[in-house]
């Protein structure tokens, strides 16, 4: 032991004269650091109540509860996270995974109360001093637990597409599909949005786990035409996908297509073994479109004997005769239809009700009749010159192409309308080499057509003229047509309503074309119904149906485009399913 060891320690007595570490009273509150994980904040308007925060929480500290002033609506469950601070460990995984970034944390960390129950609170709903704090833990842009970008679908390039009717979407490989399915957070917001309420998280899980047959079975529980819907569904689910708020939505439609494509038709019966016990009751379905086929499938599973009357020589309705082959190859549609027929559904092709067989006869022979005729009658523009040669409707064009009939497209074509039929007609005309101009009354963003159809059309060099109101068609030189339109201005109609195009007087323009294709909408053709059924209509061409899809005649039901507002295939399928349930209910309780 050295002498130094005895003396040196006294050196630190100097500390007696230094500033102490301790903070004297009154205590000043020290704010948390800018990244501090303090109390939660939630922007209730941004939050969609997907519940992913609740799923990731390893302490079960978050549950989803209804909140005053928040209504359940499309794309929003109406629930909001309630956090139990008796369980929370401030790990902030809820913030990290929040797909809308509504949930974050403030840097506040002092909250004193004598009532323990207040620490179970709904951030954003219960007003707290830290609600407006800017500092605190927020997820950084670079750090994302779920990949915000989707796996891009491979497509034929636009210059290839316009050359043929080959299917333009190539489909996912197994690796791509699994990677895309991995992005799903399984919140189920899409299920609520889907008109058929398909178990989307369920079949995406099947893709992820490569349980293809389970996935197929799951899809058939709510949708008997997955190969078709996997290609041309309007996919409202993807609009509401939680991931679409800060990134790309899951490619739900392509994953559905992937599942349907993996199983050959011959293997369907193995994947979905059914045991149908016939109950002997006869159901007649008029129209073999998605609505009719869907009803036929579910009624057949319940044991009914089904006869479908179809005016055309093939089934599928509007999905066959209104959608070009590059979007929906006919063999895929056939696959869906053939599976339904394989269950014992009878279909009478080339049988137009009212001409080849009378409605009364069907009505008499069947226990119930389902009218599912779709909208096959194109609306007229109701403008002068519409009857001049060179005018044709979009539906007629598409119908003829499907039947393999020749349509002679002239050099310059005008397509009137902004729906899917207009886009399909325009793109079909492009395929035949025509120079196509689309004229629409409103703006591009108001077009009812699918966004991707519009984009595809633009890529394929279709010209768009918007806010153009058709005025008249005049004969021009060399058998050409002069299409005259007026410019419109958009007049706001108040919140929640589409702006209305109003003609600006004196602003008239014209384009000279060889052909005018009008595709401004279509209606139903009820001419097959005899006069005695006049009572079924609430107004002209509008069947009156109740919530069970039943008309004023208790034996007659209606579904498909004639019965719903959305007028797309998936809604028709959903209605077909519901109508089937109603028919079953009705017949069982006779």
């Amino acid at each position, binding site marked *: 032991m050295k002498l*130094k*060891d005895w003396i040196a320690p006294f*050196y630190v007595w100097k500390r007696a004269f230094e500033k102490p570490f301790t903070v004297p009273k009154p205590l000043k509150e020290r704010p948390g650091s*800018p990244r501090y994980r303090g109390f939660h904040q939630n922007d209730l308007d941004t939050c969609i109540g997907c519940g992913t925060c609740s*799923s990731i929480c390893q302490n079960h500290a978050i549950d989803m509860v209804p909140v005053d002033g928040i209504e359940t609506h499309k794309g929003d469950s109406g629930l909001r996270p309630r956090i139990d601070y008796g369980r929370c*460990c401030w790990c*902030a995984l809820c913030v990290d995974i929040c797909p809308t970034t509504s949930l974050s944390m403030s840097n506040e960390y002092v909250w004193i109360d004598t009532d323990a129950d207040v620490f179970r609170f709904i951030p954003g709903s219960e007003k707290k001093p830290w609600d407006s704090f800017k500092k605190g833990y927020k997820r950084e842009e670079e750090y994302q637990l779920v*990949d915000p970008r989707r796996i891009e679908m491979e497509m034929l390039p636009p210059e290839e597409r316009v050359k043929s009717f080959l299917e333009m979407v190539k489909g996912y490989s197994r690796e791509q599909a699994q990677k895309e399915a991995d992005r799903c957070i399984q919140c189920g917001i899409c299920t609520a949005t889907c008109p058929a309420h398909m178990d989307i998280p369920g079949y995406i899980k099947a893709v992820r786990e490569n349980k293809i047959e389970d996935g197929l079975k799951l899809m058939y529980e709510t949708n008997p035409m997955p190969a078709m819907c996997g290609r041309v569904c309007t996919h409202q689910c993807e609009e509401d996908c939680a991931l679409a708020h800060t990134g790309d939505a899951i490619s739900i439609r392509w994953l559905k297509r992937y599942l349907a494509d993996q199983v050959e038709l011959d293997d369907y019966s193995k994947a979905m073994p059914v045991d149908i016990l016939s109950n002997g009751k006869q159901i007649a379905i008029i129209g073999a479109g998605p609505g009719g086929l869907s009803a036929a499938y579910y009624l057949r599973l319940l044991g009914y004997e089904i006869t479908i009357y179809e005016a055309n020589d093939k089934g599928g309705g509007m999905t066959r005769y209104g959608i070009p082959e590059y979007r929906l190859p006919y063999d895929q549609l056939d696959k869906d239809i053939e599976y339904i027929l394989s269950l014992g559904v009878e279909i009478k092709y080339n049988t137009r009700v009212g001409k080849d067989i009378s409605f009364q006869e069907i009505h008499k022979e069947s226990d119930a009749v389902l009218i599912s005729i779709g909208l096959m009658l194109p609306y007229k523009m109701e403008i002068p010159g519409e009857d001049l040669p060179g005018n044709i409707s979009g539906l007629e064009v598409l119908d003829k192409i499907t039947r393999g009939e020749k349509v002679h497209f002239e050099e310059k074509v005008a397509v009137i309308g902004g729906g899917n039929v207009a886009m399909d007609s325009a793109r079909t005309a492009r395929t035949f080499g025509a120079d196509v101009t689309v004229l629409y009354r409103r703006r591009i963003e108001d077009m009812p057509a699918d966004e991707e159809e519009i984009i595809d059309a633009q890529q394929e060099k279709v010209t768009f003229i918007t806010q153009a109101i058709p005025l008249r068609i005049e004969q021009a030189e060399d058998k050409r047509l002069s299409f005259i339109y007026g410019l419109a201005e958009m007049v706001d109609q108040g919140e929640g309503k589409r702006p209305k195009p109003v003609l600006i007087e004196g602003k008239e323009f014209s384009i000279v074309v060889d052909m005018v294709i009008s595709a401004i909408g279509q209606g139903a053709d009820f001419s097959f119904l005899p006069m005695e059924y006049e009572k079924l209509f609430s107004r002209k061409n509008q069947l009156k149906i109740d919530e069970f899809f039943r008309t004023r005649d208790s034996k007659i039901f209606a579904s498909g485009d004639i019965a719903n507002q959305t007028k797309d295939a998936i809604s028709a399928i959903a209605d077909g399913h519901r109508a089937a349930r109603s028919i079953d209910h009705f017949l069982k309780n006779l």
Partner: protein
Amino acid sequence: MKNRDREKFPNVLNGIPVIDLESQKFLKVWQGPQHPGVTGNISLEVTLSGDEVVDLKTHVGYLHRGFEKLMERRKYLQCFTIVCRICVPEPDTNEYVFAAATEELAGITIPEKAKWLRTLVLEMARLASFLMWIGGQAGALGMGTIAQWTVAQRDYILDLFEELTGARVYHMYMVPGGVRGDIPDGFIEHVEKVMKGVEKVLYDVEIALLNNAIFKMRAKGLGYISKAMVDEYGIVGPNARAAGLARDIRKDSPYLIYDQLDFNVITGTHSDALERTFVRFREMLQCVSLIRQVINKMPRNGAYYTHIPNPLHWKIPAGETYVRAEASRGEYGYYMVSDGTEYPRRVQVRGPSYTHAIAVLEKLAIGTNLADLAGLMVSLHTCPPEIER
């Protein structure tokens, strides 16, 4: 001990000492589970003869939270938030070995910058742990003031953690795939400021503690670990290094970016409590140097996180691995088994305290003075939370 009077010790029958309390030769004292002389919730059942320890049993179980079992029912990312709680004074080693084991099994490579940030956090954690320890070491031998200085410095390091990770104690920063955030503005300057403060306090500690005659006299010869014992008992870290064995995971199997840093393994010779204090003291200075090296060499740009599969249903291919790192107390490792599902099949935490606080302490305590027992226990730098996961 050979010169001592064997009379004091109990008779040994079949290798087990027979302690006859009725004889009034022996006294049984419980030190813990709540006691300033133990390093947490652990209990020492001490049998004394006079004030000399003749037998010691370590009792654990007061802090068992079942983390290993909890992890078997939690998804990988959810486990990440609970592993830090296994060791309170130095949670980051747990975070690192868990993340590294997960990444190894899942085949994920983390970005370069994440490696530097992880190293920075690990060294800061080691330093914070040592600062807390040296306060305990001095306090156990009667010098409470040292703890007040060093724990205050540790708090400044916790401020740094708060700034970088968003939390003071349980940082939850080293997420599988990288780290959760980049360096905030002004952080580097704050680190330098705190390091200067730490150096100043360490200088004072050196004078007041390491040059203190009383401390030296009490710590010298206390808890001697022979070289042979090191392998026999599985002694690691500074305890092994003080025995003269140059063992350091950071050198022996470098992880992260330790191979790019300039440092030597610090060893001692005497292998008693005093030597271990010297070794750890020098390691603290080494930590300061390493932290400075990291912040100077660290890449300023680049990604700090790489995408992992969706954590809600992240399945890791079946496999097993053992990943280890050098904590302040020595080799710290996770043996992880995955069976291809969303949950780890088994996570075994290997903390150095298990051997240090049970087998080693029970052996070294025999013959020590009761008053030195706390000093001995702290000199092994034991941490009960990691004994009972």
